């Protein structure tokens, strides 16, 4: 019993709170749960005395390690708890039992997955994150959100199935269910990588993200943005650190969403694209696999959850007050929502990695790691993408939402709880950028030698940022910037959303026709044989119409014939 208590995973209080929340009829009690559960989880985190594996139990012949507390899972666990707390605060005004429950269970599942020590536990929580988070998408409660939720669920369940299949194969090969570094060449290794890749929104596997997140509610998108992809990043860092192709995958991930993000009109979708771009930095850091690279990925994930959450929160506040996050509907909101605009600017500064903001101290690590690994082209792509980040997240989001032409929307400032959550997140963005030692102390590897605020870092970054700022000003001034037009940008998900759907419909229609044609053929044969036979056996024609039982009898005899044949031939 003592053993059990001292090593309880922080996931449990959150999961239990989620279950309670599901049956709790009182709004205020649910809100209290949403605030208290992360605090309890944080307490569990702090009380865990040392690294090690706890919460081990056996069932059905397998060993489940529910709480592996080591330098890698530690930092992810902490930021998940932190994000959960901010989310709880941000959601305080919302009266939606489904959303509350889903958010808590989803957070708990994310924590559980991060602390999982073996593949089976990982798989359970992996699937649980998918099943619980889809309700956050559905919380949008409109047909588009509903369909997007279906697609989202299908893809994530597929990821879980791949993970399980891969894990079974891998365990058969290695003889252990332990989740540690995975050999990608062993049987099942690729499947596991693919499962992680889907959740991490690798290029071409990424569409679910842009598809689902912007269709969720104001709160839902904030919660969604924190856990799923970062869980995948954790899993990659644990399983595939140093896998060289990941550098390239990461570099591509940082680059291609930039174009989509620049032309996209829905600002929350822009954020979803930029989420993708940010993940690319982390994946590239993992691909390098050195202590610096992994530290970069971990630090980036940590600060990213906070500032990306902050940006989604500001857009959520806009959605809450204005009812839209389309760039064409917005503009000039700084007059009516000054605080939100201010927090948004801080988030933008952090995501663009301005010095003294948290993004700077994290991104510096990754880019240094890639530079040290000697991969020149990915390095250049990453630098280019950093400028792109500034373009679409750093400037575009605040500019079109709060400044630009005034859309004459006069609304109230965001609710107090939202402001508080945003304020806390904004504070963290700056605090971690200034007092970067606190962040570095959490990282999985020792960081004593590293100094982010060196002259060349600052100068290099400022050059980049100023050039990008100049480019934006120039383009907007001379009306060369792609105009914000309401429209749909085709991404590769067109292939399954439209083409796949059409194909299935087409096949179904063709099948229908084929059956119809077969019916004609049958009718013709019957006509040729003459209806006399039928008339003999059923004067009223009842038997000829009553196909089912006759057909069945025929099937039965056919099968008998087949089995007889098989038995004879054997």
């Amino acid at each position: 019993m003592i053993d059990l208590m001292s090593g309880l995973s922080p996931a449990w209080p959150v999961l239990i709170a989620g279950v309670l929340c599901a049956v709790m009829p009182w709004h205020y009690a649910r809100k209290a749960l949403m605030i208290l559960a992360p605090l309890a989880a944080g307490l569990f985190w702090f009380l865990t005395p040392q690294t090690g594996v706890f919460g081990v139990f056996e069932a059905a012949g397998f060993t489940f390690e529910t709480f592996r507390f080591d330098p890698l899972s530690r930092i992810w666990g902490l930021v998940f708890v932190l994000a959960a707390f901010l989310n709880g605060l941000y959601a305080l005004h919302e009266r939606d039992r489904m959303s509350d429950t889903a958010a808590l269970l989803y957070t708990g599942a994310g924590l559980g997955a991060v602390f999982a020590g073996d593949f089976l536990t990982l798989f359970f929580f992996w699937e649980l994150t998918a099943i619980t988070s889809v309700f956050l998408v559905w919380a949008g409660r409109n047909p588009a959100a509903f369909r997007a939720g279906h697609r989202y669920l299908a893809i994530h369940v597929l990821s879980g199935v791949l993970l399980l299949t891969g894990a079974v194969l891998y365990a058969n090969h290695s003889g252990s269910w332990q989740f540690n570094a995975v050999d990608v060449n062993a049987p099942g290794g690729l499947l596991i990588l693919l499962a992680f890749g889907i959740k991490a929104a690798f290029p071409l596997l990424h569409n679910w993200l842009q598809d689902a997140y912007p269709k969720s509610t104001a709160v839902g998108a904030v919660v969604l943005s924190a856990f799923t992809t970062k869980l995948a990043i954790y899993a990659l860092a644990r399983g595939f650190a140093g896998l060289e192709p990941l550098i390239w995958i990461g570099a591509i991930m940082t680059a291609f969403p930039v174009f989509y993000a620049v032309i996209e009109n829905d600002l929350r979708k822009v954020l979803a694209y930029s989420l993708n771009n940010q993940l690319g930095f982390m994946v590239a850091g993992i691909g390098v696999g050195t202590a610096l690279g992994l530290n970069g990925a971990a630090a980036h994930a940590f600060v990213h959850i906070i500032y990306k959450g902050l940006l989604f929160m500001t857009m959520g506040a806009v959605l809450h007050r204005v009812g839209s996050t389309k760039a064409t509907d917005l503009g000039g909101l700084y007059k009516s929502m000054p605080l939100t605009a201010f927090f948004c600017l801080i988030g933008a500064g952090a995501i663009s990695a301005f010095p003294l903001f948290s993004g700077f101290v994290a991104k510096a690590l990754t880019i240094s790691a890639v530079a040290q690994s000697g991969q020149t082209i990915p390095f250049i792509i990453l630098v280019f993408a950093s400028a792109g980040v500034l373009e679409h997240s750093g400037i575009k989001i605040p500019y079109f939402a709060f400044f630009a032409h005034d859309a004459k929307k006069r609304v109230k400032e965001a609710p107090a709880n939202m402001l508080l959550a945003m304020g806390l997140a904004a504070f963290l963005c700056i605090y971690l950028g200034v007092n970067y030692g606190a962040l570095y102390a959490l990282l999985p590897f020792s960081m004593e030698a590293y100094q982010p605020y060196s002259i060349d870092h600052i100068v290099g970054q400022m050059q980049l940022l100023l050039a990008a700022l100049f480019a934006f000003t120039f383009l907007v001034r001379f009306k060369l910037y792609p105009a914000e037009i309401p429209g749909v940008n085709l991404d590769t998900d067109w292939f399954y959303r439209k083409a796949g759907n059409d194909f299935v419909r087409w096949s179904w229609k063709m099948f229908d026709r084929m059956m119809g044609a077969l019916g004609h053929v049958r009718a013709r044969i019957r006509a040729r044989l003459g209806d006399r036979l039928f008339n003999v056996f059923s004067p009223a024609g009842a038997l000829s119409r009553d196909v089912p039982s006759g057909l069945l009898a025929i099937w039965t005899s056919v099968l008998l014939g087949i089995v007889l044949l098989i038995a004879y031939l054997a």
Partner: protein
Amino acid sequence: MIEALTSFLPPILADHAVVLAVVIPLSLAPVAAIMPNGRLGWLVALLGTLAAAILTLSVAGDVAQNGIISYALGDWAPPHGIEFRVDALNAAVLILVSALGLLGVVYALPSVADEIARDKQSLFYSAFLVCFAGLMGVASTGDAFNMFVFLEISSISTYTLVGMGAGNDRRALTAAYNYLILGTIGATFFVIGVGFLYMATGTLNMADIAERLPAVQDSRVVQAAFAFIIVGLGLKAAMFPLHLWLPNAYAFAPNFVTVFLASTATKVAFYTLIRFVFDIFPSDAPFVQVSFLWVFAVLGVIGMIAGSIQAIFQNDARRLLAFSSVAQVGYMMLGLGIGTMAGISAGVLHLLNHAMMKGALFMALGIFALRFGVRQISDLSGLARTMPATSVAFTVGALSLVGVPMTVGFWSKWYLVGAALDAGWWWAAAAVIISSLLALAYVARLLAAIWVGKVPVHRGEEIRSRAPLTMAVPLWILAAANVVFFFDLSPVLELARAAAEAAFAGGIR
């Protein structure tokens, strides 16, 4: 665990428990028929199933301790007289039938009162008792011809039960008629096969046949017997493509009948298949070996894909679940077809689990039907607000059907995939996974209607309702079983493993 159950009955009962579990419900059937009203008829049925369940527990305990029980009816020694013979394999089936029969009867009262004409209710319970006794008999007997008799007893009463749905929907009559024609064809095939076996071996006792068959296994007569018997029993078990009777029968029968049939009847037929294929026919004979792959596995795989696809396109909720049952039978057939110990035990495990999930699903649908006359999927719209508790139970069953972790359905698929991979059957494992994804699609249709659909409103107010207690309790027992057994599968797994071992050891021989 089960061992502890022995000897809790006085010896006079315990010695005859095997046969009493069949005889008591059978002899209570006429008693139920003469009861003046449905309520008393129900009470008699309850007594019958309760007695059978208690006796079965004693039998199961006995089997767990002593291995095989052999009971000679009327003290006529086995090869000549009729023998009841129970080993771990049919003990598992007996537990399943009696437990679900009992839960079903507890559940039945309000549903039957609602759907069956007042003057026919006691007759209805009488027919149910006959059917129940027949199924118990099929699962206990050790005599091939006697098995045919019990199969017919249970089948004929089933036709009646299905036909009684006519009060609600006249299509029940055609469904019952089709079922009758096909069931009779199946039974005829079976009895022809048994006749061939008698011709080849000169005996009807199953253990005796098993002993004598290897000597004559190369004769065409035995092979023909094999073909007739597996097609006949396959039809009863709704093996694809012999399942066509099932969807309409399940969709139009009274709700309670569907609950009972879906969780027991095909399961018993599946048991008889295992018994014949593994124990009676020499399982190393070439024609049996070939049929594992080319009959059971192939038809099982086709069945689970085709059944699932067909389920996706249904509009009637019970028809949808019926097609899903066809797919689930496919899983069991695949387990049988793998032909290894792991395969059989996965098949039996799914047999037990499927009874829990389908039982819960049909029970919940029955409650919805009782309260709101729900038949179509669109009728389920918004029921999560209207009847939250029942909806949750339904959801648990539905998730279990897909095989989502935290439900027992997950373990079914887990062991089945494991068994397929052990045998090196990649395609079969892939088919299980594809079929699970298809299951997700049709289950999503149901759950989406319940949870996301528009809440029914009456004069501006949301309608609220709750299930009658006697219906809610069995439903919740089954729904809870789906979750509890996920966390501690060992009791079910133990049953399934013992059953597979018994099948493999030739429990009959």
